[in-house]
């Protein structure tokens, strides 16, 4: 049905809720990309079969939700209303897992021990979703519905107060909405942290035939995947945020037109957004005369082409115009002349996802969370060498240490923490001594890194900081569009210097050269990609200079990563002769008799590191 008023919306909400009368248990199987890769779709089918077989269809609602965030523990199954949290369900046997869940938990009301989460520190099993440390310390605004609702069903979003913010906004004056967003202190979640309300205001004030509203879903930062999770798990919140923005920016000035630019690597996000747009049109929430207000707005999806630079706003707009994604100089703002030279407002997925909550709960509520300069929450993707990996949404200003050690549960395999990398290829590394800084836009910038889109990549003693800097330089060299010289040539020269250092041919003067080049790129590059490209280099040099010096002066990689500077050997005292290394060695370099210490023939060894990875006794040594 078409929703023409708030009353209609309430009707749909009541209907959606009454449809659930008689449901005693809800089984939520995670359908995020992580869980799907562990076969959660097949698991859901098996559960469905068992529910039918046990004839409890009327009492049990089975649904697939978006991402729960704790991807490493997939497949995740949550049973409401109790909030029972099952993880790593049926990785080996889906049929048996489904049978167990239906028979034991749904019918008999018993818990299944093997699926319960075990705290890595206390070794205790935890039943309740909200008591697991990974979730307990989170505050969810952008991710409020992810993992709870079925993203393919608009009624579930409406039942969770969806589109009430839009109804409220359509009754407000556009200027009032902009004022509210300004007051909330919301800053862009995509990297730059520009105040969202100010951007909306500039776009509203600019004269043009049409106003473009763009959602940047080209999440290219390696190590960050929160936007994917929101687009897949709660697509309607993105649409609602965009419609509110469109109304605030264009109403009474010029017609508005919307685009969502999604990475081509995210097929599920495209699928779920496409469906959400169709449903929103069907319900009169997109298209002509939205909710009977007389306001028109529609959104279309564009798939990206697999170019990192298209996450940069001006490059993204060129790409939408059907051209190559080359950025342009910023003395003309996109808010004045953006897509097709018309006023354009571009925000990130997570930014739009915060908007409905701000309108519903008020700017003061949002501004009460966070720090002086950074309000609200931020979603981080906590990955790398940390025990609990996944997506976490926390209030701004929480100490970095709390995210890594309390929510993340510390470092894997009892290794020693070295650094955390934030901000993707534009950011830097943060060493142990700075781990107590509060995480917000300004603090991260102050220590030489940046918020970026929110990737937090944890590194331990086995990670080489020179290698990490080299990784980002190579990444960016490949992704640089080549339009301006400082970025194109600078990255190439940086890569050459790193090749020297990591192969033991570096000289101390190289370090001065790295800093000089980095500075020149910062000052001379056209867009954010080039201006920040040297950050990983400069920050590793600042905090881990001794590692660079070890590579140059001693021809040694202290972490044992840089291939040309290391050798593999086997510690005869630790080797049990299990033959796993010999079995997996691709060149036959690792050999030995059963139950006797093995050896590595350095002439045959290609330093692939497989023996190091497979050895269960830490007997393979690399240095």
């Amino acid at each position, binding site marked *: 049905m078409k929703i023409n008023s708030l009353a209609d919306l309430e009707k749909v909400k009541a209907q959606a809720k009454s449809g659930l009368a008689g449901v005693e248990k809800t089984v939520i199987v995670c359908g995020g*990309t*992580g869980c*799907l*890769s*562990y076969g959660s779709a097949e698991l859901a089918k098996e559960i469905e079969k068992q529910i039918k077989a046990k004839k409890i269809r009327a009492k049990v609602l089975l649904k697939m939700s978006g991402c729960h965030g*704790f*991807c*490493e523990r997939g497949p995740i199954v949550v049973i409401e209303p109790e909030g029972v949290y099952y993880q790593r369900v049926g990785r080996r046997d889906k049929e048996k897992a489904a049978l167990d869940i239906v028979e034991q938990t749904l019918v008999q009301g018993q818990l299944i021990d093997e699926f319960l989460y075990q705290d890595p520190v206390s070794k205790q099993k935890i039943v309740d979703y909200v008591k697991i440390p990974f979730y307990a310390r989170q505050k969810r605004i952008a991710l409020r519905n992810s993992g709870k609702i079925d993203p393919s069903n608009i009624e579930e979003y409406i039942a969770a107060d969806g589109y009430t913010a839009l109804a409220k906004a359509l009754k407000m004056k556009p200027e009032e909405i902009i004022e509210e967003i300004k007051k909330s202190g919301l800053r862009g979640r995509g990297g730059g942290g520009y105040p969202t309300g100010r951007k909306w205001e500039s776009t509203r004030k600019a004269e043009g035939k049409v106003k473009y509203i763009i959602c940047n879903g080209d*999440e*290219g*930062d*390696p*190590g*960050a*995947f929160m936007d*994917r999770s929101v687009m897949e798990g709660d697509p309607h919140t993105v649409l609602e945020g965009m419609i509110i923005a469109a109304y605030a920016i264009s109403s009474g000035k010029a017609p508005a037109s919307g685009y969502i630019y999604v*990475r*081509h*690597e*995210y097929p599920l996000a495209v699928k779920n957004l496409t469906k959400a747009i169709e449903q929103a049109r069907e319900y009169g929430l997109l298209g002509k005369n939205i909710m009977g207000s007389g306001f028109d707005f529609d959104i279309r999806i*564009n*798939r*990206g*082409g*697999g*170019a*990192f630079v298209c996450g940069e706003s001006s490059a993204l707009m060129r*790409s939408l*115009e*059907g*051209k*190559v*994604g080359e950025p342009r100089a910023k003395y003309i703002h996109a808010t004045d002349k953006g897509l097709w030279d018309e006023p354009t407002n571009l925000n990130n997925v997570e930014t739009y996802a915060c908007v409905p909550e701000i309108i519903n709960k008020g700017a003061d509520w949002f501004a009460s969370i966070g720090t002086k300069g950074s309000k609200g929450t931020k979603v981080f*993707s906590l*990955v*790398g*060498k940390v025990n609990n*990996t*996944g*997506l976490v949404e926390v209030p701004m200003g929480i100490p970095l240490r709390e995210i890594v050690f309390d929510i993340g549960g510390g470092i894997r395999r009892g290794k020693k923490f070295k650094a955390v*990398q934030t901000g*993707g290829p534009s950011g830097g590394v943060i060493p142990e001594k700075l781990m107590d800084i509060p995480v917000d836009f300004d603090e991260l910038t102050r220590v030489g890194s940046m918020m970026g889109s929110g*990737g937090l*990549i944890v*590194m331990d003693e086995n*990670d080489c900081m020179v290698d*990490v800097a080299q*990784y*980002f330089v190579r*990444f960016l060299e*490949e*992704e640089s*569009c080549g339009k301006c010289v400082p970025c194109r040539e600078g990255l190439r020269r940086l890569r050459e210097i790193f090749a020297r250092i990591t192969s033991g041919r570096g000289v101390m003067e190289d370090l001065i050269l790295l800093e000089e080049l980095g500075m020149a790129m910062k000052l001379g590059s056209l867009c954010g990609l080039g201006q920040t490209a040297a950050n990983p280099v400069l920050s590793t040099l600042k905090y881990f200079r001794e590692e660079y010096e070890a590579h140059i002066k001693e021809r040694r990689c202290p972490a044992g990563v840089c291939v040309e500077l290391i050798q593999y050997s086997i510690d005869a005292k630790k080797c049990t002769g299990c033959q796993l290394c010999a079995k*997996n060695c*691709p060149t036959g370099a690792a050999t030995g008799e059963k139950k006797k210490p093995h050896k590595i023939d350095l002439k045959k060894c290609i330093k*692939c*590191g*497989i023996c190091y*990875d*497979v050895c269960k006794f830490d007997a393979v040594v690399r240095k």
Partner: protein
Amino acid sequence: MQAKVNLKLVDDVIKRWGSDPSFLIPMMQDIQDKYRYLPRPALVRLHEKLNIPLTRIAEVATFYKAFSLKPKGKWCIQVCMGTACHLRGGPRIADSFKRELGIEVNQTTDDMKFTLQTVNCVGACALAPVVKVNDEVHGQVSAEKVKKIIDAYAMRKK
């Protein structure tokens, strides 16, 4: 090697996007979805029908990594090179695929079954190291698993 190209399919794509040259990229994506690469005759057809210089089409086709001017294998293996995957051994996984398939990155096996590529982050970082085969994601891949993945797809029809 030049595949036979059904130009009617290309014309259908152009029609679906209303013959509007600003939709060049979505049109090329649709064509690539059909053929798994961009056959030259299809690009020439775009140039003729949309009145866009062929050089500009070539510029777009070579700028975006998602496009390929060479035919791809039935299974496109993408080894993730995102930061989390890099730290957890992504480059070693790529090396294992190279050894097992006997090809370099951006090459296709002679039987046209496998194409090997690296990709800068597929956004499944919590499962690092990650390998994507067509649209299927494989998490926590080890060098031991590489052979199993290849064998499984080599046997599969669809």
